[in-house]
């Protein structure tokens, strides 16, 4: 199973990777992208099974990425990891087909509980 982490912060990508390991998902293949455009390139070459994306990024936001994937017919499990978890954003995310939103800062337990439902060994 492959996971694509999309975040413009290198520091946050590192933390997400580490938290995945600590949550027991260290055996999974992890790819990374710095924004929605980079993610799209990576997905076209080698589609992952799960995308963990930031919301607010330069060039192409996480929500725009999800919309593009929908338009292109991809059926990849998509979740947001973001600092902004307002009701309005949650509604937009759900409407676009996102399966979950994990708020920053997060804990290992949040990763285990939320991602456990979507990650198959």
């Amino acid at each position, binding site marked *: 199973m492959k996971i694509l982490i999309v975040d413009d912060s290198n520091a946050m990508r590192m933390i997400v990777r580490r938290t995945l390991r600590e949550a027991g998902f260290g055996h999974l293949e992890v790819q990374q992208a710095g924004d929605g455009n980079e993610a799209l390139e990576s997905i076209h070459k080698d589609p992952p099974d799960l995308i963990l994306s930031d919301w607010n990024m330069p060039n192409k936001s996480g929500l725009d990425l999800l919309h593009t994937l929908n338009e292109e017919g991809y059926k990849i499990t998509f979740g947001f990891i973001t600092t902004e978890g307002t009701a309005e954003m949650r509604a937009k995310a759900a409407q676009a087909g996102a399966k979950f939103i994990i708020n920053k*800062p997060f804990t290992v337990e949040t990763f285990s509980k939320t991602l456990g439902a979507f990650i198959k060994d």
Partner: protein
Amino acid sequence: MLQTTPKPEAVELSADILLELAESIWSSLLELDIQRSNDPVTEWPRDQPLLTGRVAIDGDWQGSILLVCPKAIACKAAAAMFGVSPSEVAKTDLSDAMGELTHMLSGNLKSLLPTPCRLSRPSVGEGYNITTEERIMGQVFLRSEGLPLQIILFEREKKS
């Protein structure tokens, strides 16, 4: 969980809310100690530069959120985020980490501000620069690893 009611006319955030948020970030992501400082910072350490992370807020309410700390704190935070020692932190990683911390503070505070509002990407610079067009609507003085830091919410005066 942060609990408060946004008031479009007068956005004021208590120091307790800012402290709670900082504690949450510091403990869950950095594993560094942080506590409220009994005294406001009147003098920052002179032996190292100050770094300021800023996120601007635009929309029905306009302002910005600042995180100010000595470089050593930012360095320890970046080291914790990247899993390296503070001496191994590159300048770009320092800026990235400081920006992400400011962005996390801002994103979590956004739900307490009048809507609609948008957050800018974080910017990070050296020094402690506040313009006269900004009014402090909330602030907290903290200490982490023995050094001071400050979180401030500013409201930008609307030009008539």
